């Protein structure tokens, strides 16, 4: 079929078409405001962060400790058995050196998002957070890290109560 067709539909526009005023468009901004309830599982997680503890939950049927905690196990679809406090240390599962912010501004010093496997949770169970107090070129997958918390009186019960994770001393 593509062999038989000479001309495909679809008209490509470029910047010139807009600056020449050849193309009409309607600009509008949608405004949405939301207030999300945190629920039981994540609510417990955030309350626990406020106290300087990373919380997981334990499914005895699947023998899994997951983080963030939830009240039901998506594997066996039963209720989780208990919330379990985990360590605030872990291992870098993977990371990126990101030179673009969320709104696509270029930055010189990269942000370092990472997935961190939390000590006390099942293998390969972690959370996404940031790394800090480290030279970006020194970051390695498999390195041990430790949470740096906001001072207790500034914590709000948010994932940002952990400022970032920094390299931890090997034991």
């Amino acid at each position: 079929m593509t062999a038989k067709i000479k001309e495909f539909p679809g008209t490509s526009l470029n910047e010139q078409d807009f600056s020449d005023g050849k193309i009409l468009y309607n600009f509008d901004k949608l405004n949405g405001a939301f207030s999300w309830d945190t629920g039981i599982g994540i609510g417990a997680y955030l309350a626990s962060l406020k106290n300087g503890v990373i919380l997981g939950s334990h499914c005895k049927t699947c023998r899994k400790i997951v983080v963030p905690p939830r009240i039901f196990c998506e594997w066996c679809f039963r209720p989780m058995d208990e919330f379990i406090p985990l360590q605030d240390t872990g291992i870098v599962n993977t990371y990126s050196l990101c030179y673009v912010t969320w709104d696509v501004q270029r930055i010189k010093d990269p942000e370092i998002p990472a997935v961190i496997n939390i000590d006390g949770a099942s293998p390969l169970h972690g959370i996404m957070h940031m790394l800090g107090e480290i030279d970006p070129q020194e970051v390695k997958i498999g390195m041990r890290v430790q949470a740096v918390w906001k001072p207790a009186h500034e914590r709000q019960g948010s994932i940002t109560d952990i400022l970032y994770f920094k390299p931890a001393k090997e034991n």
Partner: protein
Amino acid sequence: MGMRKVAVVGAGMTKFVRRAQETPKELSWEAAHMALDSCEMTMDDIEAVCLGTAPDAFDGIHLNGEYLSDGAGAWRKPYMRSYVGGGTGVFVPIQGWYHIASGLFDVVMVVAEEKMSSFYPHAQAAFLTIFDHITERPLKPNLLWIFALEMNRYMTTYGISKADIAQVAVQHKRNAADHPCSLLGDADITVDDILNSEVLAWPVQRLDVSPVSDGAVAVILAAEHIAKRITDKPVWIEGVGWHLDTSYWTNRDLAYPRYVEYAARMAYDMAGIKEPRKEIHIAEPYDPFDYKALHHLEGLQLAERGKAPELYSDGTASRTGNMPICPSGGLLGVGNPIAAAGLMKIAELFWQLRGEAGLRQVPGQPRRGLAQAWGDLMQVGTVVIMGR
């Protein structure tokens, strides 16, 4: 299983462009109209319509399926829109397939459309809401993170280099140079061009990424008795599969897409395929990022874990190789209007298996091909196997 045979009998597509003058409806109509023309059918022959399009946030239009319905030819017909993120483009033909395989309809039109350019200033921001609104979004993530994190884990687990991965972008963009609808086809691109492009979120660089695009694709599906009346060369849908992994993406093995494996096994079972590496002649794995093509080839059992780059370095994956991969040019080359990009892979297999792919034609009269897409928060796999 008492399911009827279903064939693809027609296909149409628009060019994939950075910004199209046409509205989403107009693009849909262009592709649908061309698909009907290609098999000399009219809307009177179409009994039901399936539409695939990505989140309403792209268009800023609530209930986008309803907005697009007239352009997709849905008026006065049973109509349904499905959406599984990036996996939509290969899921929507599956939906069309079960409409017919079940015996409910004989002829169904499947349309996939995406117009990403309306989102201002850049469609990337429309993806931000895929991160968890309570535990992740306060960290101000951008979409690249998720790919950069997965890519780094994949590279480190298997000791794969950036240059190994760049071969994928090179080959797909070169293939796309022969596609009349492509946005980023480039016959002369080299591995160095990829490795020297701007670093966005290491290890992801500018040319590792497929472009934001506008476009639409449509295919016509028919039950066996109709298909044989319409064409001498129906292309049968021999197997379909889809599968979902946990949405807690940081609680999952990021180096291996198990959900793709399960989707593929479902499709291979249905198609009676025992040795996919011998029985699949053309593979169109989903390639929004170059490493994703490799990741998916491993999930599809078309390469050993960590060994997919060898398919590219030893020539197996090239258009004249033993198992050409993305002869269309894929998302990296043709473009990535999300849902339309997945359905483009189905259209490509249709043209390839009929021997109508022009300059892109894979030699040796290929008999069977596979298309795959992936999406949601990195955890849905959709697979279709087609044969003649």
